[in-house]
């Protein structure tokens, strides 16, 4: 089929959509990286946890709360939920092989997905986000206010987290625990609780990502499944142990996939993700730790 002609207006709109997609991947990828850094586990349930918390927000809003009223409540629930899951499911098996723990997260994903269908049904639901669906004129190009809002919230969240890690004692403790458990214990860091904190923060990130994207793609139990795949790719691209990498990787991936799918004929919609993954693989061959990551030192 013919590719429609190139116009700068459309390009700008596709770019904006790509950045917005990328912001969502970045949020989820950041959550994955935070958990990986602390507990060395890839959390396969990250997407389902995000969707679950979004459903909670939806329920609250159905009871009459506005978005901004429900928002802090959901974040609190998300944080608590993440901590509880880490304490009950991950901590007891922390000495088991990594693969075992990863399988537990797979089980958790299945469980949450089933619970969502059970509690809220499988139909698509409308989610009223905080941003209007108007478009505003940015240099002659109509851009959706929603897209701008999503990117703004994501940037704000990442900035807050960066400040937290950099300038607070708790953040320092988390970073220390991720780098070297034993030394951290020696200086008084409660390593085990740092991990729980990591899971809590990761779940909050997921909740925000979910609440941002639900107005666009409609809420249903399977909402985050494809997005989680992209988030894994973004995390690998940026380097699994680099939060900065997760964010950069997410945005880069979002833009690349959108533009590739639109402007490279034979890739189209079907081969977007495989093409992106191939590019990431090539990158990893050159830099095995991703853009910003470090390759683990091999000990004899």
């Amino acid at each position: 089929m013919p590719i429609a002609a190139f116009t700068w207006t459309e390009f700008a709109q596709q770019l904006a959509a790509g950045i917005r997609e990328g912001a969502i991947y970045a949020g989820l990828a950041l959550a994955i990286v935070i958990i990986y850094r602390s507990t060395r586990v890839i959390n396969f349930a990250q997407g389902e946890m995000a969707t679950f918390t979004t459903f909670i927000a939806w329920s609250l809003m159905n009871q009459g709360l506005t978005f901004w009223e429900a928002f802090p409540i959901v974040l609190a629930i998300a944080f608590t939920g993440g901590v509880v899951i880490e304490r009950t499911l991950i901590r007891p098996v922390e000495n088991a092989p990594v693969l075992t723990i990863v399988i537990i997260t797979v089980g958790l994903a299945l469980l949450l997905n089933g619970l969502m269908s059970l509690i809220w049904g499988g139909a698509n639901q409308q989610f009223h986000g905080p941003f209007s669906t108007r478009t505003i004129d940015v240099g002659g190009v109509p851009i959706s206010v929603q897209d701008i809002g999503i990117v703004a919230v994501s940037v704000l969240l990442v900035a807050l987290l960066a400040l937290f890690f950099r300038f607070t004692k708790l953040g320092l403790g988390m970073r220390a625990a991720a780098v070297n458990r034993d030394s951290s214990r020696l200086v008084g860091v409660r390593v085990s609780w740092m991990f729980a904190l990591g899971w809590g923060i990761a779940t909050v990130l997921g909740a925000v990502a979910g609440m941002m994207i639900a107005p666009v793609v409609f809420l249903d139990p399977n909402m985050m499944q494809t997005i989680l795949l992209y988030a894994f790719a973004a995390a690998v691209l940026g380097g699994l142990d680099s939060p900065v990498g997760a964010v950069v990787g997410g945005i880069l991936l979002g833009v690349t996939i959108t533009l590739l799918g639109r402007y490279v004929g034979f890739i189209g919609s079907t081969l977007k993700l495989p093409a992106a993954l191939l590019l990431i693989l090539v990158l990893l061959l050159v830099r095995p730790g991703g853009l910003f990551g470090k390759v683990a030192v091999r000990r004899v």
Partner: protein
Amino acid sequence: MRTRLWLELSAFVVLAAVVVLLPRFVSDFRARELAIVGMYFIALLGLSVLTGFSGQISLGNGAFMAIGGYTTAILSVDGFYGHQVRDLWTIPIAGVVAGIAGLVVGLPALRLSGLYLALITFGIAVSFPQLPKEFDHFLGGTTGKILNLAKPPFGLSTTANNWIYYLTWGIALVLLVAAWLLVRGKTGRAFKAIRDSEVAAVSSGISLGRYKTLAFGISAFYAGVAGSLYAIANAYVNPDVFPIILSVYLVVGLAVGGLDSLFGMIAGAALIYFLQNHADTVARWLNHLPALSLDPQKPGIPSVVFGIVLIAVMVLLPTGVGGLVRRLFGPLTTRLYTRS
């Protein structure tokens, strides 16, 4: 050491006996189900060699199964230069084609390790279902390819399901023996050395490149054979027959079976089959526990059941069924040294 050998041999004999006699005691349809368990078992044997013995995590073996399945489908439907190939003879071809793909994948895998490798192989599992959609002329698109129903050869008077059962488990037993010999031999020792410490392995003269790619090739061959059998049993392939989640379920089966326990893979295979297809039965069993009321017809219950059982099994048996068996039989097979 000798005790262990006798234990494993007797386990094999018991298994073979059960395989031969079981269809007499179960329904025809159940034989078909057990055949599919056998196919998962074959794929898990390969994955055990790769991940359990050589330490390379793969979340992409579902794609190798797909390669095997599609090879069988293309050869039996479109044929080779117009000549339709009998489904039986496509099985080894499918295995080899998948095996070659595995060797190819093994090459870049040399540069990656740990969870980077896991996620890249996962990327393969994600990407592969897209290929038949893109090259739909050759690979059938989402409509897929429809094969002729499996029929027992040489006019044997048995049902199609029993035929599939014996074919699958016959191949499974042979491949089990092959895997067992492999891991006990020089190659297996090289794999284990690499798994335990790559640096040490290299300094003992083991070629990392050769063995790591070989492991991928072997595991892909096994997966390809399993996929081929699956295509024959279903008489149908399309991208959804080998979905992304299949690769995840294979790793689940691997963990439940106990990474490097070949016999344990039977438990893993059984678990992933029955949780997918008989979650309703499991739900009914669980209903006997107090305070649980799981109506199998309600949406989401099968997933909930699958998730709960999976978590429970992994928390209770972190080293899988194989690990449990080793702990139980361990005292028998280790010499006790006493010091006075």
